């Protein structure tokens, strides 16, 4: 699979009343065509800021820096606003958490779906309608043709999210950024929507950057995973590898602290990660996880190196010694 998105050393700083907030601190990641990359992390880890930085939708005062942000070979950083607008919604689409706030309440679904296509492609209204109905049907919206006249408030949360997905697909994008698309939904609906995203991604060969805090979702949907903590990517690996051999102490802590059916004994104490996420306001030095880490040592005061465990698996921690843990990594 060829490379679609190549992010090198991306940082996002936000000025606040108390100082500069380093929301994203020099992250690298790549997404291949047709691949599902999950960015997973807890609130404030910078996962949403990363997606907004890619789309060029950061708050006005935010500062974005990167060595490069290449999308299909073109660096998005130098792109004039007009060209970014042409990309956004057409070749890179986004699905947000709360469809009620991202659908316009005063336009019909048909207006909004067709607008997504007609503002980017030279098609007739009838052609746009036809594609809208086709995609609504494909995303499992019943009575698709009648729905075009409806307004967002007339739909349930699950249906709204299906409409959002259909809208994201209108122009046939190469990349979809989905920011917690199922967090606001009930579990039975969540399973349906996740299945739908996975099916469509395979059917259309769309690459997806899927942002979530839910490791259950990650396990079931991702091809590759990047674990974020305090504005950094601390570990990346293919999904099976990450869950089988979590290497960063934070990843291990996250996996250990959720009760899992059939694994954790009911009523036993859970292995919580002590303490809280550090403030990212002002200078941050060394490993940001050190204050919560059981394996903390002197070297953690320095910026931890990225240790390559296998060709696909890397973690940012001084405690990992690849030659000991994974002999194959050095081969």
């Amino acid at each position, binding site marked *: 699979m060829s490379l679609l998105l190549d992010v090198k050393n991306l940082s996002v700083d936000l000025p606040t009343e108390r100082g500069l907030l380093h929301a994203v601190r020099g992250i690298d990641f790549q997404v291949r065509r047709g691949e599902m990359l999950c960015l997973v992390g*807890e*609130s404030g880890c910078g996962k949403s800021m990363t997606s907004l930085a890619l789309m060029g939708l950061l708050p006005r005062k935010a500062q974005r820096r990167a060595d490069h942000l290449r999308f299909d070979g073109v660096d998005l950083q130098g792109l004039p606003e007009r060209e970014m607008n042409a990309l956004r919604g057409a070749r890179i689409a986004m699905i947000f958490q709360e469809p009620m706030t991202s659908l316009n309440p005063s336009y019909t679904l048909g207006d909004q779906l067709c607008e997504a296509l007609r503002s980017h492609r030279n098609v007739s209204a009838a052609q746009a309608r036809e594609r809208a109905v086709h995609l609504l049907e494909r995303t499992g919206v019943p009575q698709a043709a009648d729905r075009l006249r409806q307004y967002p408030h007339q739909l*349930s*949360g*699950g*249906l709204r999210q299906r409409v959002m997905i259909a809208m994201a697909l209108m122009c046939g994008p190469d990349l979809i950024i989905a920011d917690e698309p199922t967090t606001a939904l*009930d*579990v*039975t*609906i*969540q*399973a*349906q929507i*996740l*299945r739908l995203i*996975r099916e469509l991604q395979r059917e259309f060969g769309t690459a997806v950057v899927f942002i979530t*805090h*839910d*490791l*259950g*979702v*990650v*396990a*079931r*949907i*991702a091809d590759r995973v990047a674990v974020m903590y305090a504005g950094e990517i601390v570990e990346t690996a293919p*999904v*099976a590898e*990450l*869950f089988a051999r979590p290497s960063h102490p934070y990843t291990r*802590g*996250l*996996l250990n*602290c*959720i*009760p*899992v*059916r059939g694994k*954790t004994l*009911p*009523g036993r*104490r*859970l*292995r*919580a*990660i*002590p303490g*809280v*996420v550090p403030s990212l306001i002002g200078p941050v030095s060394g490993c940001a996880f050190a204050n919560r880490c059981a394996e903390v040592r002197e070297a953690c005061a320095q910026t931890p190196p990225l240790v390559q465990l296998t060709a696909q698996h890397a973690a940012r921690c001084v405690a990992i010694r690849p030659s000991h843990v994974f002999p194959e990594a050095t081969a």
Partner: protein
Amino acid sequence: MTPSDHALELCSLSRSFVLKRGLFRAPGEIKAVDNVTLRVAKGETLGLVGESGCGKSTLAKMLLGLLAPSSGKVLLHGEEIDPGQRRARARQIQPIFQDPYSSLNPRRTVADIVGVPLRIHQVGSLAEQQRTVRDMLDLVGMPERTHRQYPNQLSGGQRQRVAIARALVLRPDILVCDEPTSALDVSVQAQILNLLMDLKAEFGLTYFFISHDLGVVEHLVDRVAVMHRGAIVELRTREQVFARPEHPYTRALLASALTPEPGLGIPEIKTHEGIAA
């Protein structure tokens, strides 16, 4: 079991809301809670699961006396508490809500917030109240330096600890926990769940634990009540419900829960009557 062994009894509890449907149509009625009968034994943790809109929170509000039932009654230790005696009820049953950001007064310090119930109920002298507050905050793991802070200076987990301290400061024996960890990050969720388990062991508390997270429910509860469209559709022990779910809705819920096990894929949930959108 004699009636007094039950900390909490809900007898045919119902609550409906009138739905206005415009000028020319007759108003409709929504049965948010429909004839629910439940008993919770002393020291038991009963889990209530169900999806949004199923009536879980309406039920919780009636337990707490924040909402009057349309019919049926709530008994605490075998006694009905009339709506006029909010204070007597507050000494026996207390809530912990989902969102620790909106449930704490932003203009009061942590120690103040936890002290309010003691002042309202006039428990002990000022010095005794201060000592009780300090001990309670200590018990929930809030260090001394945080006692004079305001909620906006605290993390989500710390706020939820304050909410728990406030709920426990009058030493009630029943806690109604309405999605107590849903707004928290998973690494913090484990801390709060551990704390709830410790406090239960320490005070012999009875928990009415509402959650949509089946992993959390399985970890914490003795019995599970599954609620769907206002009614309890299944009520059995944890082992029974998780090993052999009977009601189709319970089975759909269990099938939808995504455990962190790669390779299992995403379950296919059949859209059938009343379950999916």
